[in-house]
């Protein structure tokens, strides 16, 4: 059987999936990056090896903010941005999809699809308001686990109205509401509403959101947010079963037309990989150069704007 690997190294979580040629998911893993993408990737690989044995992998695709890093480590055939990867997997799953809402750890995206092709997209630029990290931060502050955030929010009778334009203001407004005596459920539901409002104001301005709408990315796990979107959009609204790993599936789908894979094999999980960085002092740009070492040998280097450190290697 031909199997294809998709890797999505995100800011907060690392996703690895294995699919067959038809796009059926054979195996998947979803784990926290914990600031150590290489470790996360290696542990996912050893789990894959344990569950599936030494399976013959015909192609590898990487995506997510760590896509280049992942490429250097595993040897990828396709390195694609998250927007394209998410669109591809959504269209694969629901061919007539017209809108994709994707909210991850630190990015949120809106992708418009017509006839299976991306026609427009927007992505949050500088502000992290309305992303997973913000919700997680607030959950910690309120002393609840992120997993119960949504269900608690659903129990609210009248959501508190919280200013959602900016995370800093949202937080101070939330504290204000809490001191006024609103209960926790109402504040949580209010936060969900604020996040959705913020998302629509920032990304959907002037864009035509028509159904079917598909909601993916880690934040889709939160039923409170799902309910808030449904209330706001009043459209056919789908959360796919594989919502958190859709990016990785997209990357794997992209890798399907690989002829000869560059993949270094699952044994990468056994390598003694570590990264180090230094500031180049050859000009005042002072680029931070990052290198990956396999025990003592440098296997990849990047980050230099002139490209001379990377060139030294090959």
């Amino acid at each position, binding site marked *: 059987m031909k199997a294809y690997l998709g890797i999505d190294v995100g800011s907060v979580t690392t996703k690895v999936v294995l699919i067959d040629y038809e796009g059926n998911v054979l195996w998947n893993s979803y784990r926290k990056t914990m600031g150590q993408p290489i470790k996360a990737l290696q542990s996912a690989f050893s789990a894959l090896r344990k569950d599936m044995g030494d399976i013959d992998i015909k192609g590898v695709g990487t995506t997510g*903010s760590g896509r280049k890093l992942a490429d250097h480590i595993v040897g990828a055939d396709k390195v694609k*941005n998250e927007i394209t990867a998410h669109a591809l997997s959504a269209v694969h799953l629901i061919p007539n999809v017209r809108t994709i809402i994707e909210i991850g750890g630190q990015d949120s995206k809106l992708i418009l699809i017509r006839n299976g092709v*991306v026609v427009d997209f927007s*992505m949050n*630029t*500088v502000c992290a308001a309305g992303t997973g990290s913000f919700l997680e931060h607030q959950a910690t502050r309120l002393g609840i686990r992120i997993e119960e955030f949504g269900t608690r929010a659903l129990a609210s009778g009248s959501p508190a109205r919280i200013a959602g334009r900016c995370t800093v203001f949202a937080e101070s407004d939330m504290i204000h509401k809490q001191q006024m005596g609103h209960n926790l459920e109402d504040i949580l539901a209010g936060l969900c509403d604020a996040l959705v409002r913020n998302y629509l104001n920032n990304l959907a301005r002037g864009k035509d959101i028509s159904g079917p709408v598909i909601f993916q990315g880690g934040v889709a796990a939160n039923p409170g947010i799902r309910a808030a979107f449904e209330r706001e959009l009043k459209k056919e609204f789908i959360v796919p079963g594989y919502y958190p790993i859709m990016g990785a599936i997209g990357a794997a789908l992209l890798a399907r037309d690989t002829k000869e894979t560059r993949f270094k094999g699952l044994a990468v999980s056994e390598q003694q990989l570590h990264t180090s960085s230094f500031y180049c002092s050859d000009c*005042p740009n*002072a680029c931070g150069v990052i290198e990956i070492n396999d025990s003592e040998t440098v296997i990849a280097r990047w980050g230099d704007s002139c490209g001379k450190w990377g060139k030294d290697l090959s």
Partner: protein
Amino acid sequence: MRLTVPHMGMLHIAYTRVLRKNGVDMVPPPKATIKTLNLGVKHSPEYACLPFKINIGNMIEALDAGADAILMPGGYGPCRFGYYGIIQEQILRELGYTFKMSTTDNPDRLSDMIDTIRDISSIKNRFDGYRVFFLILMRMAALDRAEALYHYYKPREINTGESDAALKQAVLTIDLADSYAKLLSAAGNVKKLFREVRIDRGFRPLRVGVLGEIFVTIDPFANLSIEKKLGEMRVEVVRGVWLSDWLNDRFRFKPFRRNQTRLSTKIAKGYLDYPSGGESIETVGKTLMFHKKGIDGVLHIMPFTCMPELVASAVIHRISKDRDYPVLSMIFDEHVSEANMFTRLEAFVDLLERRKCEGISRN
């Protein structure tokens, strides 16, 4: 007097050697680096635009390198820019620098430019002033032509980096041509340089129109070398704003080139009837022009807090909707996140590619 002028794209290459030859002791600012930007950001008002901040950084570094006079285009400007020279002078004086500051009163009027040249150089004769000024303009036009060739060759090159090397060599060739006769033969040599780049002749790359505020659009340091990035993604850049066009609109030195501002104003009618400052009317007019010419999409570049381009951005997104034409606006300042920028750029190129394929299959 040791004179410096803040950088703008390759403008310094056009004038430095010629002015030096005519008795001006030029101290061009060191090539902009992160240090330049940090200096600029530290000493500029937060809401000034990126060009202002890079200017300040350039000026400080040039003064530290021994310059004692600054020439800054000014007068009534196309936008807030007209006022920049005055504020920059004040900022630098408060930092304790002593220097002579000249701002041109009206950068749109030829006689003012000639007066400025006579003022700073050993040229006293008015006719010689014209001769030198037009040589600088021609050199600028030659540099722009070399860059346009680069835009054509880069996405088609077979050996990565060959067209970058050709551009580097071309710029040097033009730099050394310090008379009209030499410039003429340099132009031929530049073409030869690019003809030596091995390209894939059958390849039809995507074409992306690049438009927007002129400083950030033409300056690779300000826009994170976005044109080179597009070239590496095998996309042909069709740039809509050129410094030599800007100069030609004011000083008419290219007899066969239409006035681009007037042309854009004509095309933009119905969408933007009056210029709203800066390059806004060019941005709108040329977006419509590119659409008509069949350019695959438009990348719109602007600095943060740029009012003229913000107006243009709203208008061109309307055009995008009306004509189903892909447009991506990118805003640059010192906080720009490279990862986010390139993710969006890549996705935009993917979008254009898919559209193109679908278009072919439909016919």
